[in-house]
């Protein structure tokens, strides 16, 4: 009986104490006619040894290719210490720190996280995490609507340069509450929000404007100008950022005159492995005055009965377990362990390590762009980009990517999946993990894949 410590003798003692004959008797309140008959579709128990071997084989099956896909999930070096510490039993197997006295480890760590994330984004306050970047965007929009009581339209401008899966997720989250997500088109040349398109909304009651930085195409939005427009229009600004880039890019707290009101994004690039899409975590930061509309947990410093400093979950009256149907969100379990990893990751890299990793990513991307130019392949968009860039081919991207994959190079994201007009474009990401040799291998694979296949004999 894996994991069940009872011996027959103990079971007998326990049953006697309860006063029943067998364990089955403990289920006598369940109507007999609905009792489960069999679980034949579930395989028999396997030992740890057997499962280990199977899973190792499955893991190896997917491994080995050189990855240049980003598109919302980024391959970075994670110091070995990060997950060795994070998976210590005391972090890994603890519950939500409701009992503060027995949870100071987790609580202090989250307080440190909140401090780091507020610093990185330039915002006043960070919460303790939401599920991921996409759902955090949804929560940020709900929050903006709650915060901006004066605005009655519940219209939110959503640039089409926001990650398509983020747009879909945000829509799922907000659509039942009468909120309208209005597409804000981009300039097809620069790849960023079209100022003219934005100007068309001037004077209209717009609750909030989402500004992705960098945007889905890796292009930098003119965040200051966009924020200035919003400030002039009485519109809240929701920044959607990749926190890794904030070592170099202007933080949303400094956009425009007063900065963004709410900032969201995905914390994955700060210590979470790619891991097939999760667990990552959602970032949510805001200005001080909005904090009581924030969803998710918050840790605050507190004083104990001895006057000693410590940490507690605070402002819980916003949350479902206290406020129930009037809570700021239904979120309960969040992504705590990934935040643990991320906090340790940020502490280990420090300001210089993070900046250097970001600068190296930027430089590597430029190197790839230069080498691609030698093949006659150039960026699809003219706007400045960070560590991700859309390359335009002279043919449909999908079969080229397929051939590259066969050669062991995952060449990027096929932009034609979401937009037929970009069917000849690949979104490529180059992080600090890539060497010059890797980039050469990319270029070689791309070159070979572009050539018409030799006719099969």
């Amino acid at each position, binding site marked *: 009986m894996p994991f069940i410590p009872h011996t027959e003798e103990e079971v007998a003692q326990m049953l006697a104490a309860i006063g029943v004959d067998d364990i089955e008797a403990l289920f006598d309140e369940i109507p007999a006619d609905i009792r*489960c008959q069999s679980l*034949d579709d579930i*395989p028999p128990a396997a030992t740890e040894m057997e499962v280990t071997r199977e899973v190792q084989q499955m893991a190896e099956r997917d491994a080995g290719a050189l990855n240049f896909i980003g598109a919302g999930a980024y391959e970075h070096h994670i110091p070995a210490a990060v997950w060795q510490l994070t998976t210590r*039993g005391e972090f890994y*197997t603890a519950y939500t720190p409701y*009992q503060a006295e027995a949870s100071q480890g987790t609580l*202090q760590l989250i307080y440190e996280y909140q401090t780091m994330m507020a610093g990185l984004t330039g915002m006043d306050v960070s919460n303790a995490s939401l599920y991921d970047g996409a759902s955090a965007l949804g929560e940020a929009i709900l929050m903006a609507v709650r915060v901006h009581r004066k605005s009655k339209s519940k219209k939110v401008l959503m640039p089409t340069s926001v990650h398509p899966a983020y747009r879909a997720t945000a829509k799922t989250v907000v659509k039942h*509450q009468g909120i309208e997500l209005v597409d804000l088109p981009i300039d097809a040349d620069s790849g960023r929000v079209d100022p003219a398109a934005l100007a068309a909304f001037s004077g209209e009651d717009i609750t909030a404007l989402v500004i992705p930085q960098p945007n889905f195409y890796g292009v930098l939005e003119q965040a200051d100008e966009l924020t200035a427009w919003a400030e002039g229009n009485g519109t809240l600004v929701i920044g959607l950022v990749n926190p890794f880039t904030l070592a*170099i890019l202007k933080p949303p707290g400094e956009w425009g005159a007063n900065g963004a009101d709410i900032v969201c994004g995905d914390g994955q690039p700060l210590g979470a492995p790619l891991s097939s*899409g999760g667990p990552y975590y959602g970032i949510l930061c805001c200005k001080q005055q909005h904090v009581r509309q924030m969803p998710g947990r918050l840790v605050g410093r507190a004083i104990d009965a001895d006057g000693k400093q410590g940490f507690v979950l605070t402002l819980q009256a916003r949350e479902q377990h206290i406020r129930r149907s009037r809570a700021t969100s239904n979120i309960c379990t969040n992504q705590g362990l990934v935040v643990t990893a991320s906090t340790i990751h940020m502490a280990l890299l420090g300001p210089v390590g993070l900046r250097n990793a970001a600068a190296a990513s930027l430089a590597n991307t430029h190197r790839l762009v230069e080498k691609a130019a030698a093949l006659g392949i150039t960026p699809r968009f003219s706007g400045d980009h960070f560590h991700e860039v859309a390359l335009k081919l002279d043919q449909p991207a999908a079969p080229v990517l397929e051939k590259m994959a066969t050669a062991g190079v995952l060449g990027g994201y096929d932009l034609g999946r979401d937009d037929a007009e970009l069917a000849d474009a690949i979104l490529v990401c180059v992080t600090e993990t890539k060497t010059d040799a890797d980039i050469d291998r990319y270029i070689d694979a791309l070159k070979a894949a572009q050539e018409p296949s030799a006719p099969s004999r």
Partner: protein
Amino acid sequence: MLIFEHSTPGRRATAQAPATTAEIDLPAQFLRRSDTGLPEVSEMQAVRHYTRLSQKNFSIDTHFYPLGSCTMKYNPRACNSLAMLPGLLQRHPLAPESHSQGFLQMMFELQEMLKAVTGMAGVSLTPMAGAQGEFAGIAMIRAYHDDRGDAARTEILVPDAAHGTNPATAIMCGYKVKEIPTDEQGDVDLAALKAAVGPQTAGLMLTNPSTLGVFERNIMEIGRIVHEAGGLLYYDGANLNAILGKVRPGDMGFDVIHMNLHKTFSTPHGGGGPGSGAVGVAERLMPYRPVPVIARDGGRYRWLTEDDLPKTMGRLSAFGGNAGVLIRAYIYMRMLGASGMPRVAEFATLNANYLEQRLRDAGFEAAFPDRRASHEFIITLKKQAKELKVTAMDFAKRLLDYGYHAPTTYFPLLVPECLLIEPTETESKEEIDGFIEAMIAIQREAETDPDTVRSAPHTMPNRRFDEVTAARTPDLKWQAGE
């Protein structure tokens, strides 16, 4: 001490910083001028700081943790080491299917196992926690009614014992919430339910066993009432551990369910997450499942997306949910196998009933003395609170001094001074007996030396906190120069 207080400006003690002399060739308008405020510490300082911090936590790996409704059971270490295999960690979520067959096979098999053990027709793994599973489920109910043009259904029914996420979820899905009272024996008040249902009823959310620690005996009748009114039945799977392999939500008549894989399927709670709230649906809700879902076509596995499920309630995350959590649940289920599933419910229930009986024998008052405990049960300390002025919170804090994590306190809301106690199946009789002795000892202290109990804990890194002041003037981050 905070990590920031170990920081010294200019420290560069890291093998982590890639050397780079590259200029940042971006226009100045895009560039950061301010500091990030990240700490500057050596690798050892960070390791030492976080190792020592971790030691201040209670956890399953160190303590008995009888937290009702949370299912704090053993998290097998193999689940962790295998989920952390480089091949799994390094797989990009958008890798082509040709480079994803190993992962997809595991996920497909997980879907199949979850279907089998819940009796549902289909499963989607994408929700990232119970609450998101609830959201997905209620949104599917809404999509179903909308799809049929049944627009008058504006209400979700929720028993008063329900978890806070239930009403909060209904609101997020645009519904009104109507509470249904509980009867004396802990069952849903059928008369009140009958009075409440109607053409405005979109559905009922139910946990079974409920958070009162008892099995809802009238479940088939409840299903009939709600279904006849045209509503659907939602199962909050937080308590699935109690009935795993013994009775299936699908066979109880539920149309849609979520499962907390971080409870019943033993993925760790991680100090607050991540979890997984996989959803299961009956046949009629199949078209509305959240995407992506994994399918097998011949010998190959592939994602189903909006193209395959055009009526989907939508997407819940950028990719496919908490894959690393799902892998852990998969491994756990494989190690239990078919025969291990009912054992979970059996021994969780045995432990709970034994613990309840022994506490009652010692004079503690059960909230539902005439009922079987499920995998958890409620003790009410209202007598102690009234006569000795020692509250459930005092007991909870004092237990920490005895080396036991506190049970859930003051939930569910309808039982005064309650402790909701869930020992789980992985605890030994030895550990449970130790807990019983601690409870008896505290009761004795409450009678003879109540101040010790009221001022507990005494052996933790901190004593009790002034939470009111903390919430009044929130201090949510450290400020440089403090």
